[in-house]
């Protein structure tokens, strides 16, 4: 549906040039919710604007629905843009127009007759739950309601693609949730392709199928959200994820030296990641049963869900005879669980004071 190849964007100014995008390749399939995450200044807003040519790439090609957007004339481009709805962080509603007029705006632009506009706008207002606000002005609405107007407006011209530029960044967590749910419903019911730009991993986790992590103008990592979440490769990805899933050691071990060799009184800490149906398997119970002489202490546990796939993360501490511990490690490696050996760490006694 959307294919970006070798997108470069260079801003020239008297103070020097800024290389905002450095060769971006990205493919977004029909019906997908594709997340693009990055810190501010990473180039994600520029990237999403290259899709509808609000920003013209310095070089590279942008295919939307088979058409190379970079080669369209001004008027062809205006028509192509009607296929791409966009919502914004600050909503960008007309303050002088009512909710109804705002939603009708794209149709007014294409000179749609008033009766047709009415037929189109009323159901959209119902879809976003604002039927009773039709005659109010944006200033009378809450942030979440304003974004609902933004969404209804973006959908008015029956687009195939919806671009969301930090659409929930100005909203509180609860409102964010309801807006994300709405985007998900629209994606499913209208089989709309959605591109979500955000700096919040929570947003990616809630609704996206795929994610691209953008850093300093390049894509650091991309893939399915499940894959990127459970097995992040790039440092920046790990940082984003750590906001949601803490990677810190339990308090009783935090700050203590981690060594590769066993020291007196230390535990071998392991980070275990269970994915999918395997999250339900009694792997640890089996380990304790089969590997005699090993003690297992549960230090941290968390069971989450990404797109309905269970995702468990645990930190356990193993102690006992060295060969029993090694035995246990070997046992775990045969099982469907990802094991990351943290190392031998002593318990911090002060934690129990």
């Amino acid at each position, binding site marked *: 549906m959307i294919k970006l190849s070798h997108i470069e964007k260079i801003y020239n100014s008297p103070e020097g040039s800024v290389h905002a995008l450095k060769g971006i390749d990205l493919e977004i399939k029909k019906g997908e919710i594709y997340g693009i995450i990055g810190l501010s200044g990473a180039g994600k807003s520029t990237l999403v604007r290259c899709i*509808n040519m*609000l920003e013209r790439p310095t070089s590279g090609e942008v295919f939307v629905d088979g058409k190379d957007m970079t080669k369209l004339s001004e008027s062809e*481009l*205006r*028509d*192509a*843009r*009607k296929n*791409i*709805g*966009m919502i*914004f962080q*600050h909503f*960008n509603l*007309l*303050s*002088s*127009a009512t909710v109804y007029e705002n939603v009708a*705006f*794209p149709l*007014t*632009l*294409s000179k749609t007759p008033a009766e047709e506009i009415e037929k189109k706008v009323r159901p959209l207002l119902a879809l976003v739950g604002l039927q009773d606000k039709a005659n109010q*002005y*944006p*200033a009378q609405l809450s942030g979440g309601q304003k974004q609902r107007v933004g969404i209804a*407006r973006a959908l008015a*011209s029956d687009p195939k693609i919806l*671009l969301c530029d930090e659409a929930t960044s100005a909203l509180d967590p609860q409102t964010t949730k309801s807006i994300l749910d709405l985007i998900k419903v629209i994606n499913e019911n209208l089989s709309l392709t959605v591109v979500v730009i955000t700096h919040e991993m929570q947003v990616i986790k809630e609704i996206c199928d795929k994610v691209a992590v953008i850093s300093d103008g390049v894509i650091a990592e991309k893939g399915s959200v499940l894959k990127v979440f459970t097995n992040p490769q790039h440092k920046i990805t790990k940082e984003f994820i750590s906001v949601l899933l803490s990677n810190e050691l339990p308090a009783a071990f935090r700050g203590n030296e981690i060594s590769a060799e066993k020291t007196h009184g230390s535990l071998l800490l392991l980070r275990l990641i269970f994915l999918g149906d395997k999250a339900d398997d009694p792997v640890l119970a089996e380990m304790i049963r089969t590997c005699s002489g090993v003690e297992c202490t549960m230090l941290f546990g968390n069971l989450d869900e990404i797109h309905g796939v269970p995702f468990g993360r645990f930190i356990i501490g193993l102690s006992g005879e060295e060969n029993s511990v090694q035995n246990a490690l070997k046992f775990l490696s045969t099982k469907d669980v990802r094991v990351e050996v943290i190392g031998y760490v002593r318990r911090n006694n002060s934690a129990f004071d």
Partner: protein
Amino acid sequence: MSAEIIPLLTKALGETIYMVIISMAVASIIGIPLGVLLHTTDKGQILENVAINQTVGSVVNAVRSIPFIILMVAIIPLTRFIVGSAIGTTAAIVPLVIASIPFIGRQVETSLKEIPAGLVEAALSMGATPTQIITKVLLPEAMPGIVSQLTTVIITLVGESAMAGAIGGGGLGDLAIRYGYQRFRPEVMLATVIILIVLVQLVQFLGNTLSKRLNKK
């Protein structure tokens, strides 16, 4: 105050209102598009054109830097060419219009600058043409601001029209000079000043009310 002065005052008031309304209408017809041009051709705007922006901007600045009383005299040949005479209420309209056009242009430009860039971006993302952006986004959104700014222009025009009266244009200024000053009739002077104060208050009040009504923020 003697009764013979009343018709003089009403006539002068009528002439002032006539000068202000006609000048304002003509100057707005040219000045508002000028303001739109100044804003939209500016850097980063929808019709960015540095050459046009700077040329028009310099002309606007040049006209605005001429004191009204000098402008009025300097363009007498032009006034004569357009109206056929350099004296009279209608003749006074020519310099008033010329002085007001760049003033309105800058005021409208200021109002348009207040509109968040995101609104224009949103309209562009919906496939709006530059004309649609001007007529359906920029002007409606800036309307409360433009109304306030134009109120200021009208009040300036009231003052300038009094000045124009001094060189034979009629109106309250002319009355104040001829009767109040030259014929030593302080009560006429006082009366015209009071009428001018009331007139300005009224214009400001109406301008504020309209601007407030248009503002949905």
